[in-house]
């Protein structure tokens, strides 16, 4: 990484850390939400971006994180951090159990198998009394948005540092080799199963912690919101919009898309969903490799866009 980029990133993180002192409550709410979404997109990036395994099941880990925290706090009166750890533990165990069979599948088949997971897990939780069954669980109310903000920011920073390390490490190289050609990677000595499962576990860890923070912040958990499959679609869109398989792409993608969506929701309220859809369609048409690739492009804007269309059209 270039030194100037590094300095810029560190400066922005420090500035972001002071946001609670200057931002309005609405801004803070928006910021917490955006940071958590960025963490989810970044976690998705570990397996989806680097190893090329498009998962629609990461929301399961998110749900387990929320429930771990909720069960610990609401049912046993344990402190928040114990809840976070419980959630992370549940998610990691789930990733290990589920990862081994499912990561044998490739391409769309992996994507579909993971898609089923969140529905299955939601149905299981709806029938567990300790998880409040269909009714959900209520967590104690805390008036501490700055704390939630700093936690979310910290989590995003840790996740991104982890991804940055990944991109320069042997582990990351293995994942990239798997993405580029899994069979060739195998014959070149890459233990594909081990690295794929490790990537899934790492993703599940960060995703579940984000879920735990969200649960305590929003103070209410039920199966429908915890295992919401559209959350997963959002992770993927944000990561891809920014540039999957890059260090900062998912973060930038989440920040930009969240802001666009929020502004649309405020300004032209009713047509926001429509425009959001149009933004996605246009983004895929004209910059399929995301903002990160656009930023590195040598040619002027419109020529870059046209080149992308030319490369992918029939």
């Amino acid at each position, binding site marked *: 990484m270039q030194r100037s980029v590094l300095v810029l990133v560190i400066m922005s993180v420090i500035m972001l850390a002071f946001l609670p002192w200057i931002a309005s409550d609405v801004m803070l709410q928006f910021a917490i939400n955006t940071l958590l979404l960025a963490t989810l997109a970044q976690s998705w990036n570990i397996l989806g971006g680097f190893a090329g395994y498009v998962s629609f099941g990461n929301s399961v880990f998110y749900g387990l994180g929320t429930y771990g925290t909720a069960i610990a706090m609401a049912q046993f009166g344990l402190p928040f951090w114990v809840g976070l750890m419980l959630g992370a533990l549940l998610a990691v165990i789930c990733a290990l159990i589920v990862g081994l069979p499912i990561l044998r599948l490739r391409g769309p088949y992996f994507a579909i198998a993971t898609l089923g997971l969140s529905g*299955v897990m939601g149905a299981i939780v709806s029938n567990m009394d300790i998880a409040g069954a269909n009714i959900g669980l209520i967590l104690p109310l805390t008036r501490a948005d700055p704390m939630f903000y700093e936690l979310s920011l910290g989590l995003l920073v840790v996740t991104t540092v982890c991804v940055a390390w990944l991109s320069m490490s042997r582990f990351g190289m293995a994942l990239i080799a798997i993405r580029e050609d899994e069979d060739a990677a195998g014959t070149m000595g890459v233990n594909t199963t081990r690295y794929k499962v490790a990537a899934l576990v790492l993703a599940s860890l960060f995703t579940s912690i984000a879920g735990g923070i969200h649960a305590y912040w929003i103070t209410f958990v039920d199966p429908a919101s915890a295992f919401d499959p559209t959350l997963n*679609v959002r992770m993927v869109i944000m990561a891809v919009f920014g540039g999957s398989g890059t260090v900062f792409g998912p973060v930038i993608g989440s920040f930009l898309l969240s802001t666009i969506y929020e502004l649309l929701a405020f300004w032209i309220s009713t047509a926001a969903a429509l425009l959001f*859809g149009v933004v996605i*369609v246009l983004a895929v048409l004209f910059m399929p490799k995301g903002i990160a690739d656009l930023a590195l492009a040598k040619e002027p804007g419109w020529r870059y866009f046209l080149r992308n269309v030319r490369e992918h059209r029939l």
Partner: protein
Amino acid sequence: MLLAQVLLNGVLLGALYGLMALGMALVWGVLNIVNLAHGALIMLGGYVVYYCYTLLGIDPLLALPVAMASMFATGYLLQRFLLNLIVRGALLNTLLITFGLDVVITYLGQVVFTADFRTINPSYSGANFMLLGLTVPVLRLIAFGIALLLSSALWFLLNKSGLGRAIRATAQNLVAARLYGVDPRQVYAVTFGIGAALAGAAGGLYGMISHLTPYIGSSLTAKSFVIAILGGLANPFKVILGGIVVGVAESLAALYIGPTYTDVVSFLLLVVILVVRPAHALRAA
């Protein structure tokens, strides 16, 4: 007796599921596009039939061809002028663009059709007869018949016609197809159009048996997805069979495990098949 009735329900409903998945499987198999807007196309087809019936007084079954024709045109245009532009991109990108389309179509649906729910309710909608002690709902039986009819028609189209040969050639090898004088842009657009037309027919039947809102699309997409995998992408009859398997599995799950588990069972079925017999699924691709 209860079991027999439940199985019958599952088979009849499953065929309609299969019909829903037919267009998705076709588009997926030939164009390699996993169309997440497929459910939205089903929804549009449903509304076409609804308005033919309520505004023009056309019998919904006779309005099905109208829905198919208009959806064919919609699908053709979508592929020709939008999806053809990205069709060589990564799978993930086709997923995303069709997801974006789904959002757009759903929103426009809400503006044009309003959020109110609708049903297509002809006089015979609740008719039924007894056969060997089982109650057979007429409408579901008709839907079953139409599913078989359309899958046969698709089979003949693919296997016995010049267009079908062109479609299959394009699916197998784009370059070779070009050498034989096939214009893939045209073939892709026609194929997507046929997929949309099948979705239109499924939508009309769905509106008669269930209900329509602009939001039904995404759950129908998910169901079609599962069935397309189960049935494979190559043979229309297998897709219908896949639908029936899902219909029966869901019905049995509702009977023996509990109705809250129907979705879980169909997805578990999918995961098990994917994991245990990946070759089956992979061969289809």
